[in-house]
C-alpha cells in the first residue's frame, strides 16, 4: 500500500526537474505547411485586372493596395515617374482638390503610402472599416484619374537636390552610382530634366502604364469579401483594357575590378559597403542562393558574417547581406557594416574571408538544416500569415511572373538544396575580383 501511494505521488507531481532535452531530440514534428491556394482569393476582371481579396477581421481596418509595373526607370522623359509619385502622394484623384484629398485622409485617420521602386510602384491605403465607402472611390480615382499639375513637377524637382550625408544610406547610394554607372538603373533626373518636363509628359507616362493589365490589387481586412469583389467590379470593370506595355529588359552592367572607393569622413563611426552586381537569377538557382545568403549573412543573428565580425571580436553591431531585387535586370548584392574607425579594416578582412570561404568550402550539414528550416518553415509561411500578407504576396507574384508557380514550388525547392548547390551558386555569383568597396571613413586601406 505504501508503495502504491508513493507511486501515485510520483505520477501526480507535475515536474521535478528542468527539461533540458536538446532541440534535435525533442521530437518536434515535421512541418506540414501548405501555402494557401491563390484561386480562393483571386478575382480576374475581363479587362485584365487581377485582384486578391481576403478577410482579416481581428480589427476593424481595411487595407487596399495597388501594384503597378512602372517605376523610376520606366519613364521615357526623365522626371515623369517622380512627378507622378508626387501627384499620387499629394494631389489625389481628379475632381478633388489637393486640400480636400488631404483632409479626407486626415478625417479617415488613413495611413497612405506611395512607394516607387525602379520597376514597380506600390500604393497602399489603410483606413477604418467604417470609412470603406469613402476610401474605395478615392483609391480607384488615384489609379484611374490622378490629378497632375505643375506643382507636382516643381515639388519633385526640389527633392532631387543633393544633400551631403555620412551614413549607411549614403554609402549604399554611392555603391549604386558605381555599379550602375551609365546604366538605366543609375540614371536619376536632374533639375534640367524637370525644367523640360510638361504635365502632359507625366500624364502620358501614367496613361501608358496605369492600365488594368499592368497592375494587380490586394484588398484585405474587416470586409465581406463577396461585397468587395462586387465593388471592385463596379469601380474598375469599365476601365478600358488598353495595351499592356512591353516589359523593359535591362542590359547587363559593365563590370570593374575590385576597387576601394574612399570618401573621407570624420565621424564617430565608419560605414562600409562591399558588393557587386548580380545578373538576373534564374529559377533553378533561386532557392540555393537564398540558402547561401541565409548562411552567409541574411538579416538574422547567427550568420557567418555576424560571428566573424560581431560575436567573436565585438567589431560591429551588424554585418549583413542585402540583395536588391530588380525584376528585369541586374541587381546589387551588398554586405554592409559599420564600426568605430579603428577596426573597419578588420571587418573588411573578415568579411572577405567569409566570402572566399563560402566559395571554397562546403557548408556544414547543420548550417544547411537550419537554413532550410528557417526559409521553408519560417520566412516563407509568414508571407501568407494573414489576409493582407497573403493578398499582397499573391498580387506581387502575379504582376511579376504572371502566375503562382514559383511560390507553389518554393518549399520543395528549398528542401532540395544540397551542399554542392550552395558552393556552386557562391562560385557563380560571388566574384571577389569584382567586389567594390565603399568606405565612408577616416583612412583608406589596401584591398586584399
Amino acid at each position, binding site marked *: 500500500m505504501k508503495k502504491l501511494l508513493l507511486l501515485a505521488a510520483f505520477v501526480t507531481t507535475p515536474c521535478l526537474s528542468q527539461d533540458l532535452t536538446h532541440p534535435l531530440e525533442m521530437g518536434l514534428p515535421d512541418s506540414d505547411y501548405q501555402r494557401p491556394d491563390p484561386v480562393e482569393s483571386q478575382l480576374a476582371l475581363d479587362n485584365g485586372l487581377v485582384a486578391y481579396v481576403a478577410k482579416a477581421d481581428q480589427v476593424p481596418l481595411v487595407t487596399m493596395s495597388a501594384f503597378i509595373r512602372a517605376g523610376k526607370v520606366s519613364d521615357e522623359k526623365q522626371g515623369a515617374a517622380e512627378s507622378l509619385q508626387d501627384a499620387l502622394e499629394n494631389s489625389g484623384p481628379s475632381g478633388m482638390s489637393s486640400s480636400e484629398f488631404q483632409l479626407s485622409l486626415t478625417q479617415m485617420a488613413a495611413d497612405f503610402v506611395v512607394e516607387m521602386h525602379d520597376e514597380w510602384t506600390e500604393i497602399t491605403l489603410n483606413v477604418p472599416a467604417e470609412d470603406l465607402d469613402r476610401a474605395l472611390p478615392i483609391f480607384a480615382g488615384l489609379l484611374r484619374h490622378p490629378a497632375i499639375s505643375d506643382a507636382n513637377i516643381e515639388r519633385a524637382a526640389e527633392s532631387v537636390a543633393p544633400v551631403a550625408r555620412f551614413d549607411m544610406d549614403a554609402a549604399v547610394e554611392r555603391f549604386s552610382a558605381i555599379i550602375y554607372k551609365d546604366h538605366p538603373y543609375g540614371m536619376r533626373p536632374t533639375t534640367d530634366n524637370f525644367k523640360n518636363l510638361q504635365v502632359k509628359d507625366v500624364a502620358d507616362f501614367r496613361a501608358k502604364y496605369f492600365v488594368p493589365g499592368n497592375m494587380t490589387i490586394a484588398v484585405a481586412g474587416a470586409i465581406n469579401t463577396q461585397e468587395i469583389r462586387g465593388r471592385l467590379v463596379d469601380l474598375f470593370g469599365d476601365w478600358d483594357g488598353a495595351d499592356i506595355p512591353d516589359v523593359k529588359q535591362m542590359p547587363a552592367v559593365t563590370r570593374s575590378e575590385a576597387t576601394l572607393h574612399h570618401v573621407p569622413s570624420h565621424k564617430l563611426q565608419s560605414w562600409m559597403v562591399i558588393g557587386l552586381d548580380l545578373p538576373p537569377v534564374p529559377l533553378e538557382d533561386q532557392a540555393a542562393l537564398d540558402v547561401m545568403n541565409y548562411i552567409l549573412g541574411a538579416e538574422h543573428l547567427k550568420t557567418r558574417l555576424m560571428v566573424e565580425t560581431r560575436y567573436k571580436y*565585438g567589431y560591429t553591431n551588424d554585418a549583413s547581406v542585402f540583395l536588391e531585387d530588380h525584376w528585369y535586370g541586374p541587381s546589387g548584392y551588398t554586405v554592409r557594416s559599420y564600426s568605430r574607425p579603428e577596426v573597419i579594416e578588420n571587418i573588411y578582412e573578415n568579411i572577405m574571408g567569409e566570402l572566399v570561404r563560402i566559395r571554397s568550402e562546403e557548408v556544414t550539414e547543420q548550417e544547411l538544416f537550419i537554413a532550410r528550416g528557417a526559409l521553408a518553415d519560417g520566412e516563407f509561411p509568414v508571407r501568407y500569415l494573414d489576409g493582407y500578407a497573403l493578398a499582397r504576396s499573391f498580387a506581387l507574384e502575379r504582376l511579376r511572373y504572371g502566375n503562382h508557380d514559383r511560390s507553389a514550388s518554393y518549399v520543395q525547392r528549398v528542401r532540395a538544396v544540397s551542399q554542392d548547390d550552395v558552393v556552386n551558386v557562391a562560385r557563380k555569383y560571388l566574384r571577389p575580383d569584382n567586389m567594390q568597396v565603399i568606405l565612408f571613413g577616416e583612412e583608406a586601406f589596401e584591398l586584399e
Partner: protein
Amino acid sequence: MRSIRNLPILAVAFFISTASAQDYKLPILEHVYENGLRLLVIERPGESRVVSKIFTDMGALNETPGQFGAAHFLEHLMFKGTPTLGALDWEREKKLHERIRAAEDALINELNRSRNDLRQRGVFHDYQHEETTPEIDEQRALIDSLNQQVQELSEEGPQSIWYMAYGGTGLSATTEQEYMKFDIDLPVDRIELFLRIEADRMRNSVFRNFDAERMVLVEQRLGDLNGVATEFREAMNSLVGRASMVYVPEGYSNDFQQYTRRYERALFETYFVPNNTTLIFIGGVTLDEMIPKVEKYFGYMERAPEPARYEGREPLPSAEKRLIWRSDTLSPRVEVRYQIPGVGHPDRPLFDVLAEAFEVQLQSTMTDAGVEGTVDINTLVVHTSRFGAPASINIELVLEDGLQTDIAEELLLAELQRLGEEPLPAERISAAQKKLRTEWYRKAVDPYELAYQIGHFEVMDSWRTLKPYLEARDAATADDLQRLADKYFIDINRSVGVVLAVEAEQ
C-alpha cells in the same frame, strides 16, 4: 531544506477579460502559477503560428550609477547560450569560467583600490581613454586569454539557431527602462521549443564572450550618437527628470568598461525568477493546452524573494528649467516638456488625446502666425512612448528659421495658457480620438505588436490596465483636457530647450 526541484506549481488564479467594449477585442486569458509565473494567452483557433514573448520586470530602472546600461548588456549576454546549448565541452569550459571569475575578483579589488585615481583622472573618459593601472591591465589580459579558450569550446548563437531551424521568425530582444523581453514567432506545433529555450535561458545563461560583447554596446552607443538630435534629447531628458537613471536606458560609454560579470550575475539571479516573469502567447494555442506545457518547463522553479521594484520618485517641481543648445547640424527648435504621471494613473491616457488634439491646433496657429515649421507632441523617453514611472509630455517645434525661436516659444506658451482657459473644440477631440483608436488597431492587428503592448502594460502597471486605458481615451472630454492643462502645464513643471545655430551666437 526544501529542494527547488520539488516544488509543484498549481493554478491559483484564472481570469477571463470579457470584452465589454466591442471595439477593443482583448480576450486575454490568465493563469498564475504557485511559483508566481504569469501566463497570458489570446487564443486564435485555426492560426498556424503563435507569437511568444517572455517579459521580465526589470530594466534600466534597476541599475545603479556607474553601471548604467547594465540591464541592456545583460540582454546581450543572455544570447550566449547555456551549458546545454552552445557548449562543445562543458566540463572543460566550466573550469575556465571559474578561473575567469577569480581573475575578475582580482580585477574588481584593484578597481576598488584605485577608484579615486580612476574617477579623478578619468572624469571625461570614454572607451578609448580608459584610465588603468598595471594590475588592471594584467588581470584584463588574463581574462582575455581565458575568453579565447572559452570561444574555442563553444559555439555562437546557440539559442537562435534552433529557433531558426524550426521555423522561428521575428527573434528579438529588447531592454528598456522597465523590462527585458525575448520573443519569437513559431509554428504552433513547435511551441515547446520556446519553453525549452527560454526556461533554460532564464536559469542557466552562461556569459560567454563578455568583453567582445561589451564593444558591441560601444558600437550601438556610437550609432546613437551619430543621430544629430541624440545629445540634445539626452540633455533634455536629464533636465526634466531628477531621478536621472530613468532617462539613461542604454548607458554611457564610460560605464561600459566598468561592467563586471559579478554585477551582471547579481542582476540575473535577482530578477530572472518566476514571480517576476510573464509569458504571453497569441495564436493557434489555447490556455488549457499551454498550462501543462509551461508547467513542464518552468514548473520546477521555486518562487524567489520578491525582487525590489524601482521606487524612485520625482521630487515636486520647484522651478522652470531652461537649456540653450548650440548646433550647426540640428534644426532650430523650441521644445517644452512637462512631467506627467505614468501608466496606471487615471490622467495618463488623457494626455494621449490632449497631445493629438493640441498638435493640430498648434500647427494651425503657427501657420496663421507666419512661423514656418512642424509640430510634434509626444511622450517619448528615448525609445518608449509610455512609461510606468513618471514621464513627460514633449512639445517640439522644429523651425525653418532660426530667428523665429523667440516668437515660436511665445506662441507656444500662449497656446498652452489658452488650453487651460478655453476648452478644445469637440470635433478636434473627436478627430484625435479616432486617430488614436485607428493607430491602436494598426498595432493590435499584428499579434507581435499586440503581445508587446500587453507585456509592456504588465510591467508598467498591469495588463488589466490596457483596456481601460484605451477606453479612457475614447471617453475623454474637453473638460478633462482643460483640467490637465490647469494641473500640469504650470511654470514650475516646465523644462524648455531652445536650439540655436552656432553662428547666431557670434
